[in-house]
């Protein structure tokens, strides 16, 4: 790998005939499918310096002009957590009484759900307008627009990590426990990232053509919050309703983060596999959709 990158790069060739980009495709159907599956990772690796440069800029921009800067990123989740603790501690009990070790558990329980939900909603709100934000690059340079959803999802991840850190510290301080299952966090985060990147590819491509995508998400996201077990669990429902609930991928993600952080139990394998399947499917469908629309985007944006 290193020897490859050291070697002088072959001069890039652009070849288009009647609007069709000619790419040398090797191998049969299977090899082409493998190449497609590997493409997002390879492209991200190729543009890693660009991703880092824009990500660095986006992160420093968020709190620019504020004196406290990054303190806000920590204070916001702290205040949220304090509010839920005051509002819910002792008032409502967990459905699973055995696991409810302390009165703070319900607050942490909601907090876990909110971290997952706000991760989703940030991308849902920003996705449709993402390409408009970077229109000047897309119109005037050979800008790899398909990297933008990756960059913006990574930026959102930074805030999610802060929220998770606050949650873990709160768990240690308030509940006095930390479950070993917290080590499974990467198994939650990576599929979630894949899902959100895929979703943002889809929303960004759609949003490039019509602003309706933006309004649609602004209307849907708050409704979805109540159709998603952020403030409650699905345990109380009948099995049929529960199965329907799992069609919403956020249900799985929220259940997993609660299992591994607050309850300290292993998430159910079926839920993990189903969520993983939905994530990977969304990732590749989104990528496929974005690539299909890619050439028309510079015309319309």
């Amino acid at each position, binding site marked *: 790998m290193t020897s490859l990158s050291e070697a002088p790069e072959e*001069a890039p060739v652009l070849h288009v*005939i009647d609007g069709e980009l000619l790419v040398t495709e090797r191998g049969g159907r299977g090899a082409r499918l493998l190449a497609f599956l590997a493409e997002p990772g390879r492209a991200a690796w190729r543009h890693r310096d660009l991703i880092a440069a824009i990500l660095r800029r986006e992160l420093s921009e968020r709190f620019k002009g504020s004196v406290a800067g990054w303190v806000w990123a920590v204070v916001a989740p702290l205040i949220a957590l304090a509010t839920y603790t005051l509002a819910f501690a002792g008032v409502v009990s967990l459905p699973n009484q055995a696991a409810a070790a302390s009165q703070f558990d319900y607050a942490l329980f909601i907090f876990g759900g909110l971290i997952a939900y706000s991760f989703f909603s940030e991308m849902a709100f920003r996705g449709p307008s993402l390409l408009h934000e970077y229109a000047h*690059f897309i119109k005037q340079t050979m800008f790899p627009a398909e990297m933008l959803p990756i960059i913006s999802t990574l930026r959102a991840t930074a805030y999610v990590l802060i929220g998770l850190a606050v949650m873990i510290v709160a768990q240690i301080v308030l509940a006095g426990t930390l479950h070993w299952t917290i080590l499974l966090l990467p198994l939650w985060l990576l599929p979630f990232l894949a899902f959100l990147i895929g979703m943002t590819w889809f929303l960004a491509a759609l949003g490039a053509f019509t602003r309706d995508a933006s309004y649609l998400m602004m209307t849907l996201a708050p409704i979805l919050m109540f159709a998603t077990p952020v403030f409650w669990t699905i345990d109380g429902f009948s099995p049929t309703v529960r199965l329907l609930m799992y069609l919403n991928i956020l249900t799985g993600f929220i259940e997993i983060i609660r299992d591994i952080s607050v309850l300290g139990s292993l998430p159910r394998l079926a839920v993990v596999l189903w969520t993983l399947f939905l994530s990977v499917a969304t990732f590749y469908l989104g990528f496929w959709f974005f690539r299909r629309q890619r050439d028309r985007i*510079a015309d319309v944006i």
Partner: protein
Amino acid sequence: MSSEDAVIRARNLGKAYQLYENRSQWSKQVLLGAFHTYYRSFWALKDVSFAVQRGESVALVGRNGCGKSTLLQMICGILRPTKGELWVKGRVAPVLALGSTFDLEATGRENVMIGGAVLGMKRPEVLQKFDSIVDFAGIGEFIEQPIKHYSTGMRSRLSFALCAHLEADILIVDEALAVGDQAFQRKCLDWIEGFREHGTLLFVSHSKAEVMRLCRRAIWIDDGRIREDGRPVDVVRAYARAMEVEPDDMKRFSAA
């Protein structure tokens, strides 16, 4: 002219934009496009064929809206042609209005880092060339200031300096020099002359003197087609004469 050592080949190249009356026409096209066409095609570039050899310096002349920029954007790979064949080999550096991609809130340094990455430079490469870029731009301590405090001239200085350090095979200069002062224009022209020894140049300018100095060939694009292709001296003269005779008719912007 043989195409043995060509870096750019275009054959019957055309680019159409889809124009819609309103948004609902667009959504009808998406849903019912298979049965009926809801847009009018505007052919910004109609039928263009030419080849550029390695090391050539070619000037593109023509009136506003004749299709020059569309052609350059296709060569850069920003726009996809609608018909015809286009073949481009090598790293392309578009000086076309690069300054307008600058993020106004970010400092010159941040913009150089991002701009370099967008143009395909690796981070160590940008860091290594950074001092040289700032030196070429000649904007001194302003590099640490947000771009919004720059004058237009300073912006184009920085963007040209960045492109000059790209080590591109094909340099595309689109009226970028017009805003610099005399001293900086001379610096850029000198640099471009040096670049021509190993690279290919596509140059858009309304300045007759610049075209004569830098280019050995000129292509006059008129209404999406090549009207003349030859020595700069002849093409520029024919173009200038036509400008005097033909009125500035705005009808040419309307779709056929």
